[in-house]
């Protein structure tokens, strides 16, 4: 690991000031991703601003009936929070599907939002990677790409965004609040992450010195919801495909649906096309299949990840089918 300057920030003002003063600085939250990347020399910041002690660790109810979640809240605390468990069970399920108990005890909301891809070539400095070193190429396209994306990719980069939590947040229409020395702003989650295009090293719409302070969830919907993750082993593995879904059925017709996908795209993927097809359609197997097909129609596959189209289709259909059944029972 390269030497770096270390600033421990007691409050938000100090943190954003330190970041503004030291271009290329990185915020250190739980450190579960950043420290690994620094040890691999993929991240080489000159300054590390430790934000782990910032008092941004609470969950508050908002006036509109939603929740505001502090950015430094640990993943395990968030998953266990009574308001989250009861009103946004999908978020709890997504958090608990991720990593391991030890990691969740360290990982924070902000760090989870900004965690970087798990593309193995991104971690391996001996191979070309546009994301790590723009202009060098992409080793994954002709290489081992079983875990890579099928939607929203470009010729430059086919990496996935690996987060489980973010998929639930995308389905829930979360809004991210950020702050820097200039002030604060709110970014809908859908606009936080970028698609790779020909600049895969630019992953978000944040400025380098902007600090995420909280995440806001709108009031919960009553519809049954679920986070379903398909992976190689039953714990401690990233998603091959994951689905966050909420489905409201009235008189056999889809009244409202939220659907987001993980493991298949460079960002948490809100399945807008599928939602469009489903809304107002009969809540049947055929509609579910048509919705999945519509969402996956633009999929572009590589040698190793062709299976993800079929796996995603089946996981979407199965999840919606389960939710429809659950709704009709209620």
């Amino acid at each position: 690991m390269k030497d770096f300057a270390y600033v421990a920030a007691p409050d938000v003002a100090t943190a954003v000031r330190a970041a503004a003063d030291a271009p290329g600085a990185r915020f250190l939250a739980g450190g579960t991703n950043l420290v690994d990347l620094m040890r691999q020399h993929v991240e080489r910041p000159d300054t590390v601003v430790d934000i782990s002690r910032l008092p941004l660790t609470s969950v508050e109810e908002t006036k509109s009936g939603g929740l505001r979640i502090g950015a430094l809240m640990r993943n395990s605390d968030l998953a266990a929070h009574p308001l989250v468990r009861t009103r946004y069970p999908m978020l709890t399920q997504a958090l608990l599907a991720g990593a391991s108990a030890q990691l969740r005890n360290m990982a924070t909301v902000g760090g989870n939002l900004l965690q970087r891809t798990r593309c193995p070539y991104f971690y391996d400095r001996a191979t070309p990677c546009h994301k790590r070193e723009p202009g060098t190429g992409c080793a994954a396209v002709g290489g081992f790409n079983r875990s890579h994306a099928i939607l929203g990719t470009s010729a430059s980069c086919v990496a996935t965004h690996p987060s489980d939590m973010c998929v639930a947040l995308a389905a829930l229409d979360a809004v991210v609040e950020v702050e820097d020395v200039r002030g604060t702003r709110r970014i809908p989650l859908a606009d936080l992450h970028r698609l790779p295009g020909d600049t895969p090293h630019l992953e978000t719409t944040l400025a380098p010195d902007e600090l995420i302070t909280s995440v806001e969830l709108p009031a919960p919907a009553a519809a049954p919801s679920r986070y379903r993750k398909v992976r190689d082993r039953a714990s401690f593995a990233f998603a091959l495909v994951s689905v966050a879904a909420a489905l409201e059925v009235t008189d056999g017709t889809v009244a409202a649906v939220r659907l987001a996908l993980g493991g298949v795209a460079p960002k948490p993927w809100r399945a807008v096309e599928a939602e469009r097809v489903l809304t107002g359609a009969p809540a049947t197997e055929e509609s579910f299949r048509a919705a999945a097909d519509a969402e996956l129609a633009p999929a572009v596959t590589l040698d190793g990840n062709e299976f993800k189209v079929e796996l995603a289709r089946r996981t979407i259909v199965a999840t919606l089918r389960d939710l429809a059944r659950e709704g009709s029972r209620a």
Partner: protein
Amino acid sequence: MREIEQSWVGGSRPRFDTAGRVRGMIAHVGDQAVGAAAHVAVHRATQPHARIEAVHVDEALAMPGVYGVVTGADLYKQLGDRLLTGPAFADQPALAHEKVRYVGEPVAAVLAADLATARAATDAIWVDYEDLPPVYDLADALAGTAYVHDELRPSSVFGDLKHLRGVRDTNVNYTYNLRTGDAEAARDAGAHTVTGEFWAPPTHHVPIELPCTIAWVDSGRLEMLTTTQTPSYVRQTIADLLDLPLSRVRVTTRPLGGSFGAKMYDRLEPLAAALAWTAGRRVRVTATREEAFLLTTRHGAAVSSSLTADAEGNLVSSVADVRYDTGAYADVGPRITAKSGMVAPGPYRIANARVLSRCVYTNKPSAGPFRGFGVPQVTWSHESLIDELAHELGEDPYAFRRRHLLREGDEAPMGTRMHSADFVGCLDAVANAIGWFDPLDRGTGRIRRGRGVAVGVKAVLTPTIANAVLQLNQDNSATLLISTVDMGQGSDTIMAQIAADVLRMDSRRIHVVRADTDATPYDTITAGSRSTYHTGNAVRRVAEAMRDKLIGLAAERFGVPAEEVSLTPDGPRAGSHEVTVAELVHGHFGARGATLTTEANYTSSWTPYDKETGRSDKVTEHWFAGAVGARIAVDTATGRVRIEHLAVAGDVGRAINPTLVEQQLSGAAIMGIGHALFDQLVLDQGQLINGTLLDYQLPSIRDLPDQLTPIVVESPHDDGPFGAKGVGETGILGVAPAIANAVRDAVGVRLTRLPLTPESITMALEENQ
């Protein structure tokens, strides 16, 4: 049963080390204080196949805390061709010399004041390479346009490899041929033939404990403490490497935290010895988890095979072309190629068999021994084929196998007879356990259920040598000196049970000394499930010699003939005469604290197989027989397999300690689940892609079966100690095919490539629709 009898043969006495292992009270090699030592880190090759033009070490040497940097060329200058070591071929240098042959091969070693400095300095080393055409896989290797080694260099260990010396222009370092009858003609004339292209990928052992070697020079002797299963072998290797008499090399061990074949033969030891000797310093060599993935692997293997039945359903022909990818260095690959090739037809009565089994070099991390010694890869082929043949004939796969399985006294296709190998008993046991004969709720929706069975056969490593020395202390406690390494399998416990049973004493009063080549006698290796039988026999004999000695002393003391004396837990008895062992030994020496000593040897023998036909009337000392039954559920939406019940049976001859046997069977079955559904090393252009515990998908605790049933089958071996044989590998042989056969039963697709990933199942379902 009296308490003392629980500690004898057949008793389930707890392992002596359980508490220590669980509480971390047993110090492993890496836990030992080393004192002042140079810490070693290794600079590794970035190219799969390249000539080394220059190694730039100046920048690293200039770093504060760096004592020295050593390259392959430096070592070659001092050691010459002795730098090249290996069990079958002397082909592997401790540091790459002239050429690198895989990404990750050690090129230069840094010796520094601490490990962090050593590691940092490896990043400051630069190597100029001239790239050579890489041999990435079996197809490249067999195409024969580029060669990983310029010529074959058989080591002096195995005499039967001599004829390969100097052979050039090939990547095939060993070929085993089995020819029984005319298998091709029988296949062509047969009524029903099934064929398959099977693949089992390279995998890694992933023992919990990482390897570590500490080496130093003391009074002109090279001494080391190391994580090895093969201390006697390592002593010989180091003596050869440094050109020292065996008496000037000492190899000591501690209990291992798992190994499964990962800590055998030439791992960190040659490098540590060469550095300690040439630098005249104490050195400590370790590997990170990521480096450990590169040290040794299980052979990836391709098997193209067929199985033929005649119109009456008799098996008439088995043909198999087996290719083991041994990576950059042969290690023990040639042995694996022969020992596994000869059982490629499976444990069946088949009139005609033809096997071509080859060991092939590629530019990959080297493959070596791994629990099962290559046999699971061929079991994957024969147990899939016979299952498919049963389906084709419309027969029940269990009953079809049962009809054809080898029985006691039957001759296997390679010419050796079966004894103490109860395949039928094992198969029946697992079939019963998973409810083969009961109705099954197969499911109608997304979840579909199925059942599968598989049988496995493996030969024990033969010939091998075991020795034991026993010291009976005056207080009727004992010290047993053997070179078997306890790595969690419980050998120290069962060896004590064998000796105690003979001597009618409490096995908890017997201490088994950790292998130390200065003190414990020669033992071929702790591997291949050979120790219970071989070392167990040496221990039985050494205890019998002690019993005879005690009885002789007692007879003298009682003034009766020896035949009238018997040994009881309370001491020797003859009619009304009685004496305790303590009194007897004290009386004999007339001094306190003396010991009686005996020694014994056990050596197994074989008839080498014929070069042309691969046949032998005694190719092995004995056989392992096992069977696996699986009841599974396939989620047809996601392709995930859930194992509802896995039953694994092994014929162990006689269980010295039934609980330990069950643990071996269960542990092997769990490892086998990894190979069936999860494990594989992924290499892209020679570069290991998933060499971390996150990316290498070992099964997690949640992936284990809902129910796991180990079953001990006992058909005593005439020459085993108390009828016993080993069991370390029996449980793993048939796991993957049993699960794949259950998938076939559940959803009708036959998969031939491991692991059975969710996508391979969904894709196959797609194609079937």
